[in-house]
């Protein structure tokens, strides 16, 4: 039976989502909510090592994370001749397989699947029929609401502030993030292309009490 890799397993949340700018409007509140609830988001963008295969990195992150969030809202191609995006469903499959075929602690894994509209996914991924999938309706507040509610329902968190309050705190954070980084010399372009680990670090600092 596999032994636990480390204590962080209970707090790690693997985030399976697109990382292009079109998704930043949902990724920022998603990351904020996970950190706000005192969990550690784990993303494939965490480190950039050209010698490491992306799939190896993803499998490693899935293995060390008890929880995972998979957003399938961007798998559909938006223009003629554009391919649909298979990374997110593939990584969800790896997660599912890890839980299904493992023994021991890895069977305790839990995942949240997000979509833009309820039942949209069934047109492309009917294997998920019957699986409880949450819809964020492409709204930043919707992401906060679904992630927060899932942690309450599935993970068992108690006395968690409402989605609206968490979103208010997120906007306070964004305001401080903007004004402080501006003073430090970050341009708007620097802020929108900031590496995810750096952004998560600022969220942690802010929640930890640093202005």
């Amino acid at each position, binding site marked *: 039976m596999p032994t636990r890799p480390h204590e962080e397993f209970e707090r790690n949340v693997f985030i399976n989502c697109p990382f292009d700018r079109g998704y*930043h409007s949902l990724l920022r509140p998603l990351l904020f909510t996970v950190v706000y609830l005192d969990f550690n988001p784990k993303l494939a963008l965490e480190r950039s090592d050209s010698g490491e295969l992306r799939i190896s990195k993803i499998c490693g992150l899935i293995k060390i994370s008890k929880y995972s969030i998979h957003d399938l809202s961007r798998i559909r191609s938006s223009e003629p001749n554009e391919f649909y995006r298979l990374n997110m469903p593939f990584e969800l499959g790896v997660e599912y397989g890890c839980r299904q075929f493992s023994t021991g602690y890895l069977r305790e894994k839990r995942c949240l699947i997000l979509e833009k509209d309820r039942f949209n996914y069934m047109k492309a991924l009917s294997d998920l029929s019957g699986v409880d999938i949450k819809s964020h309706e492409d709204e930043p507040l919707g992401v906060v609401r679904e992630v927060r509610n899932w942690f309450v329902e599935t993970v068992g968190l108690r006395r968690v502030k409402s989605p609206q309050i968490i*979103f*208010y705190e997120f*906007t*306070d954070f964004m305001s*401080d993030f*903007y004004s402080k980084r501006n003073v430090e010399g970050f341009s708007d372009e620097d802020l929108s292309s900031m590496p995810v680990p750096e952004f998560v670090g600022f969220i942690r600092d802010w929640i930890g009490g640093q202005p």
Partner: protein
Amino acid sequence: MIEKKSHHSYHVSPDSKGGWTVRKGGSHRASKRFEEKKDAVDWALRVSRNQRFDFVLHRKDGTVESYSVYGERSRFQRDQDATK
């Protein structure tokens, strides 16, 4: 709770019902709600200036569209006045 700079600001944001809310930073309730963005901005700018708070206009995703500093300038002016 540790005071943050955003707590000395008024924040204008679009809401889920198509209107606009004005909220004092750190508060868990909106101070006022408007149907039109212009009305929300005008009201928030006025109270920000009066109270020497900063003014922050947010986009729907929480990012900052514009930021006007009234608080720091006011503190600076007070310091200047004190040296006269």
